[in-house]
């Protein structure tokens, strides 16, 4: 056993030091291979059964755990340190830079078929897994969360209020709706990644990496515009501030207290499950725009399938990851069992996304999200300390809602703390 440990440690070390910036050569292993795959998407084991039935030489074992920030990422770090990480792991886009900075990902760009797969995925999701670099692919995109606006078509019509198409109209509608005793929406103070989606739509960038230094920019003009906008709605008490996804939050949607929800594609089932009494009354429209006639959309959520550092079989792992996220049968099953909205362009061909949805009055809502997906800025970059940044900004948002400080103050504090946190981990920061 000791010699086996030494051997695997040796080969992993050899690959990573020789690789440098270039992708390591990716050669197929000889003989049958067993891969471990850690995910938290419900039903993924059933999807993998399809693969296992057709690939007797590359068997995949699925391990399901709590979702990434609830423990699985920390487990990945521990396992990488201990040298027994799974071959494949599900990793959300906003956590990928962190895994990469900690040297936790294999560059699979040289593996067969990986580089050619670029065209099969929505552009911006490919940018997330390559970090915009030539010769680098650190994961295969799995799902995405393009954003649009869910709204109560019936209430808007009955009240004679136009469905807003710009943020300016949205604010005006908020006042009219408040006059009727309801809220246009809820401001989710814990969901800082939702707020980032708003900044993303506005063309803002929170992080940039020039290959050497990280540039932190939570307080860019675009970010400030979004913060000021929502601060204004909060100050005038035009939006509620319930904890999102809580029972009371669900209840306020169910009772018609909320007229809109600007959210991601996966929110469709959250809404239909949390607010069953309002079935048939909702519709989906593109996100309100900052400029009249604009088409920009933000993104909230989404994840990838990455090959983790130390895998003995990166070629087979990459092959499986590609199949998992492009095979029509696999995508259909992952959507049915796990609610996955695939990052593959072919997702629009899936039956599940073709028809009208009863809960949304029979509207073909996935057409709206497909459009939104193509209008997401492909260059958005996440930083390597997102969990920390989310916590810091969320604390500040909470304080702002409590009346001390503003959303902008929260971003300024988050900016400073993020820079401190990067420095404390010896990650170079540009200033």
């Amino acid at each position, binding site marked *: *056993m000791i010699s086996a*440990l030494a051997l695997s440690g040796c080969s992993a070390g050899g690959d990573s030091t020789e690789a440098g910036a270039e992708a390591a050569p990716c050669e197929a292993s000889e003989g049958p291979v067993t891969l*471990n795959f*850690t995910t*938290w*998407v*419900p039903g993924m084991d059933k999807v993998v059964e399809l693969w296992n039935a057709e690939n007797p030489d590359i068997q995949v074992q699925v*391990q*399901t*755990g*709590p*979702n990434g920030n*609830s*423990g699985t990422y*920390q*487990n990945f770090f*521990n*396992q990488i*340190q*201990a*040298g*027994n990480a*799974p071959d494949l792991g599900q990793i959300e886009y906003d956590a990928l830079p962190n895994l990469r900075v900690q040297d936790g990902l294999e560059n699979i760009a040289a593996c067969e078929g990986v580089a050619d797969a670029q065209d099969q995925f929505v552009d911006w999701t490919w940018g997330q897994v390559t970090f915009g670099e030539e010769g680098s692919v650190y994961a295969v995109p799995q799902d995405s969360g393009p954003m649009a606006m869910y709204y109560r078509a019936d209430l808007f019509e009955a009240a004679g209020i136009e469905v807003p198409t710009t943020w300016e109209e949205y604010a005006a509608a908020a006042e009219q709706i408040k006059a009727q005793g309801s809220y246009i929406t809820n401001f989710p103070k814990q969901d800082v990644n939702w707020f980032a989606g708003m900044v993303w739509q506005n063309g803002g960038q929170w992080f940039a990496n020039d290959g050497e230094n990280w540039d932190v920019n939570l307080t860019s003009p675009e970010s400030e515009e979004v913060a000021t906008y929502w601060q204004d709605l909060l100050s005038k008490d035009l939006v509620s501030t319930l904890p999102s*996804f809580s*029972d*009371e939050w*669900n*209840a306020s949607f*169910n*009772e018609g207290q909320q007229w809109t929800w600007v959210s991601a594609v*996966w929110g469709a*089932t*959250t809404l239909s*499950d*949390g*607010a*069953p*009494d309002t079935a048939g009354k909702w519709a989906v429209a593109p996100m309100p725009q900052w400029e009249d006639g604009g088409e920009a959309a933000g993104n909230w959520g989404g994840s990838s399938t990455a090959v983790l550092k130390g895998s003995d079989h990166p070629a087979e792992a990459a092959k499986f990851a590609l199949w998992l996220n492009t095979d029509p049968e696999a995508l259909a099953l992952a959507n049915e069992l*796990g*609610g996955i909205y695939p990052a593959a362009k072919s997702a629009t061909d899936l039956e599940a996304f073709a028809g009208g949805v009863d809960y949304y009055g029979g509207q073909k809502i996935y057409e709206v999200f497909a459009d939104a997906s193509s209008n997401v800025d492909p260059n958005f970059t996440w930083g390597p300390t997102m969990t920390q940044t989310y916590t810091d900004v969320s604390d500040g948002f909470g304080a702002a809602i409590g009346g001390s400080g503003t959303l902008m103050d929260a971003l300024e504090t988050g900016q400073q703390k993020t820079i401190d946190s990067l420095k404390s981990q010896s990650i170079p920061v540009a200033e």
Partner: protein
Amino acid sequence: MSRSAAMLIMGVFTLYFLTPIWWLLTTSTKTGSEITSTAPLWFTADSAGTFLTNLGRLFAYGDGLFGRWLLNSALYAGVGALIGTVIAAMCGYALAKYEFRGREAIFNIVLSGVLVPATALALPLFLIFSRVELTNTMWAVFLPSLVSPFGVYLARIYAAASVPGELLEAARLDGSGEIRTFFTVSTRLMAPALVTIFLFQFVAIWNNFFLPLIMLRDQALFPVTLGLYAWNSQISQIPELRSLVIVGALVSILPLIIAFLALQRFWSSGLGAGSVK
């Protein structure tokens, strides 16, 4: 303080502690949509029927995963607490009844173990278990739960107080070996302390969450706490899990309540015995 004031304070705190459990009970009898749309602390018209449906769904979901988790928890906590109690009792008894060099030093080291939170040990344990390739096995959770420094402490002071040296002398004169004396004579005298140690260990292992979170990858090995946590973290993807998590939480506290009620008799008599001496 007058008796009625004391009763009032106790009443308020009883209410404070029981309300969440009451909420758990009422909410377990609701469908997903009723959770948000009905009064949170009262039942609905079809409570009993919905409760049975929820229970059925709970044990059917994911090929009966929940039942497996319950069994795992029972195994980790039941066997772990039993063996842990025997080890702690032997250790505490030896420290109380035998004179040997370094006795106090050993006792102090064990005692300082009470101060180290289990959470702080989880990561070092993971790295050690990784070395011997025991992570993601039942052993990874089972072996660390055999250790109970508090149990050693309790066993020592109880053995010192309740097992008379004369009795041990008499047993030796009668030709009984040390091990036989321990299991036939001493453990009976120490029974209340042993029940207490067992209960403490049982609850601690049943509620242990962080160690399994770090050690286990395979859902089939999860204890019920980690399983429910994993489900809870998936609610945003699979909203139907919300009601299963709630019913599952209710079911998962039942074994603890049963263990306490069943062993309470021994336990309270033990506390009483200590106080009179």
